């Protein structure tokens, strides 16, 4: 493994009621996060290929952990998202190198499908910084019931020379989705959008 991992975390949330109304079945989402050493902390490095490879590794590892935490087959996942927080000695571009070029393929392999863009966010911050991982339906980005986000934070990460990388997966949309738009049973699944 190229990534030097200090710790791995998983977060699982299950919402059973909202505004006193029972959510049946409960909505569930999971995030898996790795705290890794930033190989380029503290200096400008032109070629970010190493981080891109790390992104590929983590795409597989974290998706597998998140799906396992939900206890579902990968193919049953409905929405997904990814995010990274770079410690103070790194640059935003380091997060981009992890998130964008390579993790898509292993993420989709773990989930069976995934025609839609994987929504993402990134930031630089200190330990405990809140990371809001955007969520969207994996097969059709316009499914309105699945536009969502999941906040995670790790109190001791990222340290200055670290990067916190996270992938979130759900088995459902928002708890009581009712603002219309494309629904999941209307997905055509051709272009990743509708």
């Amino acid at each position, binding site marked *: 493994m190229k990534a030097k*991992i*200090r*710790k*791995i*975390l*998983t*977060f*699982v*949330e*299950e*919402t*059973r*009621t*909202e505004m006193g109304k029972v959510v049946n079945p409960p909505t569930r989402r999971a995030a898996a996060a790795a705290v890794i050493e930033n190989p380029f902390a503290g200096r400008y490095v032109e070629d970010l290929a190493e981080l891109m490879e790390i992104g590929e590794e983590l795409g597989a590892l974290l998706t597998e952990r998140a799906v396992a*935490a939900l206890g579902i087959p990968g193919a049953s996942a409905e929405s997904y998202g990814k995010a990274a927080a770079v410690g103070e000695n790194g640059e935003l571009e380091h997060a981009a190198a992890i998130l964008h070029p390579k993790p898509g393929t292993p993420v989709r392999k773990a989930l069976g499908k995934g025609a839609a863009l994987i929504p993402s966010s990134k930031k630089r911050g200190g330990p*405990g910084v*809140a990371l809001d991982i955007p969520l969207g339906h994996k097969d059709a980005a316009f499914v309105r019931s699945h536009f969502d986000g999941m*906040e995670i*934070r790790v*109190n001791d990460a990222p340290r200055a020379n670290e990067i916190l990388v996270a992938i979130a997966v759900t088995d459902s949309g928002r708890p009581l989705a009712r603002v219309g738009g494309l629904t999941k049973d209307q997905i055509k699944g051709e272009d990743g959008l509708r």
Partner: protein
Amino acid sequence: MHDVLVRKRVVIAEEIFHEGGPVATKPLRRAAALAVIHNPFAGKYVPEIAGFMDDLNPLGLEMAKFLIAALGGVAKLIEGYGKGAIVGTAGELEHGALWHVPGGYAMREILGNAKAIVASTKKVGGPGTRLDVPITHINASYVRSHFDAMEVGIADAPKSDEILLALVMTTGARVHARVGGLKASEIKGEDGLR
């Protein structure tokens, strides 16, 4: 007798490989089980509240089982524990104290023979409030390597009329424990202290 209305459950698991020192041969694992429940006493002073402790027992057991599952599925792997509560702003600190008995009972019940008092903390707070749940060895409070804490919190909880309940377990000492004191191997196991 009050119903225990759970809005949301969260499980957080950490696997710690190192903290700048040698990579652990057996990573330290920590997990927290959180439940967000309606506070039946919110908004008013209720003199008699103690009966709610019995109502919370089944939830405590369920959370303790989640923790064991999140940490490998075997109760005897567990070496440290702790508990805590965050009471929403329409409640009082005393409502958080209702968790002492059922939270402690649940973990002892699951762990079999744990002798040490369960370290705990509590506070009143709003959504997103963080709680540092203290952790000590399950059989001897003075085991220095196992003094630890795990920060927990949920972005949207507790609402003012809710209580966030937390149980935490770990599988071992701090990852680079080296400040002396009573060792786990020296536990006499008579009084829960040493």
